[in-house]
Every structure is written in C-alpha cells, then in structure tokens.
C-alpha cells in the first residue's frame, strides 16, 4: 500500500473556521445573530457535503490523524483564550465538551456495538455523585477521584450486563429505560445523597492548584476560573475522541460492527458476543462517568433534576443528529443541542418541543444524520 498522503492544510483551515464559528456562537448575544449562525452551520455542513468539500477535509483529516487532533485542540484553546473572561460562555463550552465525551461513549455502545442505552445521563449522574461523595468524604487526589467516578459508573453498569446480554431489541431497551428511571427516583428519595436538594461539591484541585481560583495571566489580564474547567473538559473530550477513533480503526472496531450488524453471522465466525458487548457497554459507561465527575466539580452542585430521562433522550438525539457511528458528527450536534437553547431565550421555553420535532424530521427524512458515517479507514492513506 503506497502512502499517498494529502496535505493537511484543509484541516488547519477548517479548524480555524470552526474555532471562529464556536467563538462567535458563544460570544454573540443578539438573537438574530445566533439564529443566523445556527442556520449557517447546518447550511455549510449540508452544502459542503453535497459539493465534496467535506470529503476533502475528511480525507485530509484521516491522512493526518494526530495533526488533526492537535490542530483542533489548539484551535479550541484559542477559543478559550478569546473567551477568557466570559464565565457563561466558558461554562457552556465546557458543558459541550462533557456532553461530547458522554456521546462518544454512546457512539461506542450504540453506533458501533448496537447496544441501545437510554440511561446515558444516569451513568453521567453516577460519576457526578461518586465524585461528590469522594471529594466530600475523602482526601483522595481529585484526578484519582475522577478516574474512580468513571470506574464506578462502569461497575454499576455491570449490574445491567446480565439482562443486557440476554435480551435483544425492544426488550434490551426496556432494561436501560427502567434503570434510568430507577436511578432518578433513587436519587430523589435517598437522604444520604441529599435527596431532591442534591449535594454541594468542592472545586477541583490538581497538584495543589485550585481550579476555582480566578487567575491572572500577564498580558491576557483576568481569566475566569471556568477557563480552567473548559481546558480540563476539552482535554477529556479530545482524549476520548482520539481513543474512540483509534478503536474504530482497529480490529476491535470491526468486532463491534460485526456484533451490531448480525449477531448470528458474528457468532458463526468466532466473535465472542458477550465479550464485545460487555466491552462496549462498560467502556461507554466509564466515559460518561468520568465526564460526570468533572461536571460535579465544575458546577459545584448536583441534584437529581440534572439527570432526567429526558436528558438521556437528548444524548441519544445528539448521536443520531450527528450521524450514528461517526464521532465527528457528535461535535456539531452537541454544540447545537447544548448551546442553542441556552443562547436563544426565545426558544428556551420551547427547546424540548423543538428538539423533538427536529429529531422526528431527521429520522423521517435523513436517518443517516448531519455527517453520515464513512467506511472504516484503518490507517492514513487507506485504500488509495
């Protein structure tokens, strides 16, 4: 296989354009500006898909996977620097990154292995509550607490493994739906976890440095403490993205696809269905749990009301809207779904209704999503 690589300039141009877009989207406040940007984003995605521009960018990105992630992380850091003292914008940016992380976990579960998870927000919540309890009642270093949050989410998820493995389709969907509702009700009635009032969570400390302190960075002037959390959330999302992408470009990704597309055929060719389902389900829940841990420390306060069944539906909608099985699609989808309702007070009240209608339209007329998944490319220059 000759490596006939393309240049990476389309990646850089796109990353800069995306950074400008995200900055404006978060910074501008006029309602008409926001609407224009949102409509613009969808129009650009669709038209560049139609005229093959998107394909060129995707090819360039897949030829330079490492450069792509680096460039995009740098571009996102640039956005953070530009927004350095905008508390609300930074909080939203961090929230988008955390939602991206959960949705990458769901992509692993649903997009690849075909396991429906209607309890995404519950595993996020388990991570958040674990982090809250551990940072309130123990002296463990916070980075470790976040890792444990992910592990606990994976571990509690394993309670569902037996019913998940034995059931299929609609029966399997019921298992996670029942769990999501059970979890929410449990939080509400459990006094140890603060009941409906929830828990206060101390801010994150990394190597003796408190992320909740406002900092002053020389010529940049005052920087909101949310900037630190945005960086943490960004690194988490980027790490999860790199991991999922690597997984997809390996035999592991192929095994998961085989499990999703046809269980009988997969079993007839030696693929151990339980092993790969457990792997995808647990890894996905761990990602959601880690994101939950960061979320708890960032928001300083968690309550059952943040972990509704409706939020799980929102997560599934992001995955579908982006294009099931395409991690790249998760990015614009999460940005739209998380930020748009926060920025548009006009639709704030109507946001769930609008999402419901949006998802119905997508499922009805474009079930493959904004950025449909491409063929697997095992490494740079694949198939050329």
């Amino acid at each position, binding site marked *: 296989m000759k490596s006939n690589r393309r240049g990476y300039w389309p990646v850089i141009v796109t990353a800069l354009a995306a950074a400008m877009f995200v900055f404006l989207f978060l910074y501008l406040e006029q309602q008409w500006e926001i609407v224009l940007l949102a409509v613009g984003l969808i129009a650009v995605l669709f038209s560049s898909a139609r005229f093959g521009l998107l394909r060129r960018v995707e090819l360039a990105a897949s030829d330079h996977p490492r450069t792509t992630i680096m460039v995009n992380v740098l571009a996102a850091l640039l956005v953070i620097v530009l927004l350095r003292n905008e508390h609300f914008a930074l909080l939203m940016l961090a929230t988008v990154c955390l939602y991206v992380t959960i949705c990458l976990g769901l992509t692993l579960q649903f997009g690849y292995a075909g396991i429906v998870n209607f309890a995404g927000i519950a595993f996020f919540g388990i991570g958040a509550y674990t982090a809250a309890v551990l940072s309130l009642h123990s002296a463990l270093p916070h980075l470790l607490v976040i890792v444990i949050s992910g592990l606990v989410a994976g571990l509690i998820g394993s309670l569902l493994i037996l019913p998940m493995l034995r059931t299929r389709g609609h*029966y399997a969907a019921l298992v996670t739906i029942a769990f999501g509702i*059970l979890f929410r009700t449990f939080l509400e009635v459990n006094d140890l976890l603060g009941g409906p009032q929830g828990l206060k969570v101390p801010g994150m400390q990394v190597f003796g440095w408190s992320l909740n302190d406002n900092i002053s960075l020389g010529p940049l002037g005052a920087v909101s403490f949310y900037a630190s959390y945005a960086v943490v959330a960004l690194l988490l999302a980027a790490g999860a993205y790199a991991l999922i992408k690597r997984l997809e470009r390996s035999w592991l990704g192929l095994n998961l696809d085989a499990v999703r597309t046809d269980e009988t055929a997969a079993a007839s060719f030696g693929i151990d269905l339980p092993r790969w389902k457990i792997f995808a389900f647990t890894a996905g829940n761990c990602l959601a749990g880690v994101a939950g841990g960061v979320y708890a420390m960032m928001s300083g306060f968690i309550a059952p009301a943040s972990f509704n069944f409706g939020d799980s539906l929102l997560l599934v909608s992001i995955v579908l809207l982006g294009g099931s099985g395409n991690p790249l699609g998760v990015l614009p989808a999460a940005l739209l779904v998380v930020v748009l309702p926060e920025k548009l007070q006009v639709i704030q009240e109507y946001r769930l209704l609008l999402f419901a209608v949006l998802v119905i339209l997508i499922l009805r007329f474009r079930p493959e999503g904004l950025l449909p998944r491409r063929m697997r490319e095992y490494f740079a220059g694949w198939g050329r």
Partner: protein
Amino acid sequence: MDPGFIAQYLLNGIVLGVIYAMVAVGFTLFFGVLDVIKFSHGDVVMAGAFTALATYAGLELLGVSDGMFAAIVITVMGIAAMAILGALLAKLLILPLRNAPPLNTLLITLMFGLALREAVRLFYPNGSNPKPFPQLLPDAAMTIGNLELRLDSVLLIVLGLGAIVAVHLLIQRTRIGLAIRAVAQDPETARLMGINFERVVLMTFALGSALAALAGITNGLYYSEVNFGMGLLLGVIGFSAAVVGGLGSLYGAIIGGFLFAALQTIGAVWFSVPAYKDVFAFACIIVLMAWKPTGLLADKSAERV
C-alpha cells in the same frame, strides 16, 4: 397488619392494575401487528385525559351539570380524539419507517411523545401545573373497619375490566379481529388473502390509542388530578408490563399490568419510604428480564437462519 388496611392496599392495587393493563394492551397490540414499540403511548394516555378535561371545560360553559352525563361525554370525546390521533401517528410516522431499523421507530415515537408532552405543557392553559380532574362519578362510600370502599373505585374497576374484555372479544370474535390476528400472524400472507394491511394497522392503532385514552381518564377520575408529565411514567410502566408479560400476547399484557401494580403495592408496604416503591418495582423488572428475556408468555420464535 390490620385486614382493612391490607384490603385498602389491595383495592388500590387493583385499580392501578386495571389502568396499567389497559396501557399494556395497547403496546402488545401494536407490537402484534407491526413489530414496533410506540413509545408515545404513555403520552397518548395523558393527551386523552387532557382532551377529556378540555371537553369538561366546554361542558361547564354550556352549563351541563349532570355528573354521569358529563362523564360519558368526556370519555367518548377523549376516546374518539385519541383513536384519530393514533391512526394519524401510524399513518404519518410509523408506517413510513417500516423498513428502517426498529430502534428508529422507537425513537421517533419517543420524540413524538416528548412533543405531545411539551405541547400540552406549553399550550394548554396553565398546562405546566397539575390540573384538578372533575369528580363526576357518584361519591357514595361504604366503610368496613379501616377499609373505605368507594363506589367510584368499583365503577372504575368494572369499566376498565369491561373494556379489556371487550377488546379481547373484538379480537377473538369479530371480522376485524380476525384480520388483526391474521396480520399479526403473517403480514405477507394476510395481504395475499386480500386483507387491507394498512387499514388493519390503522384500526389497531386507533383501538390501542382509544384504550389509552380510557386509561388516562380512569387515572384522572381515580386520582382527581392530571398533569402533563403523567404519561412518561405510565408509558414506561405499560411498556414494562407488556414486555414482562411477553410482547404480542394479550393475556401477557394483562398479567404484566397487574404484576407491576402488585410489585408497587408490595414495595409501598415493604419500605418505610413509599417513594421506594418504583425503585423496587423497576429493579424487579430488570431482574425479571434477566430471568425471562422474552417475557413470561411470549412464544419464542426461533430466528430463521
């Protein structure tokens, strides 16, 4: 424990069981003819109750004061409106997705349910708050020890059981029932036999949704209150009941409905904090799914290889 107290729990459990069974029968009917899960079903229950409520407001404006008459009118209106809604939903959202992955249907109906819920919350006057539901049934009651036997509860149980039996007879004894069973058995053959597939599907969805409306109104009359979010839990419970009973089985749905009500009742008696009853019931459902992955009564049809 005092026997009257236990009887009170039992009576309450039976009313709940009837409501759940009515919802579950809808799920099982839809699954039977089309192999789909219509997840907006719970919100149809809610919309049925709100349609009845709106009708009652209209009757009040007209000055109708007779309780029984009003009860009949609002029930008929709720049932008719939901039957039409159910058929429309099948026609516009579910049938077009017939060849898509089954999960897409589940999601599109979940989203339709969300839209319905939000529409009521936003557009029904003061819809985001719980609404009192009128007490239209005779309020006679009999007190035996600690048990307060209310006439309206008994009426609701009789009405609900009657509706379920009627649906059962409709499916077993009538021509349209025969067509529904034929489609459930094998859609292709049914089509070849000259059965209008689409019509049967639409009628089944109308029938199931009508039953949902009745469940919603029963729920409203029993608790004297409805709210826009009531469908979510009722839908999940109805779905659980249908799945635990075995999708596609009418008896399974009825058994599942009463089983869920029993679990909740046991949970409520068992735990000092009554709110744990749902945690308990759903945990039991998850365990049941691990034990009987295709429900209690479903005939396990082997996949063709």
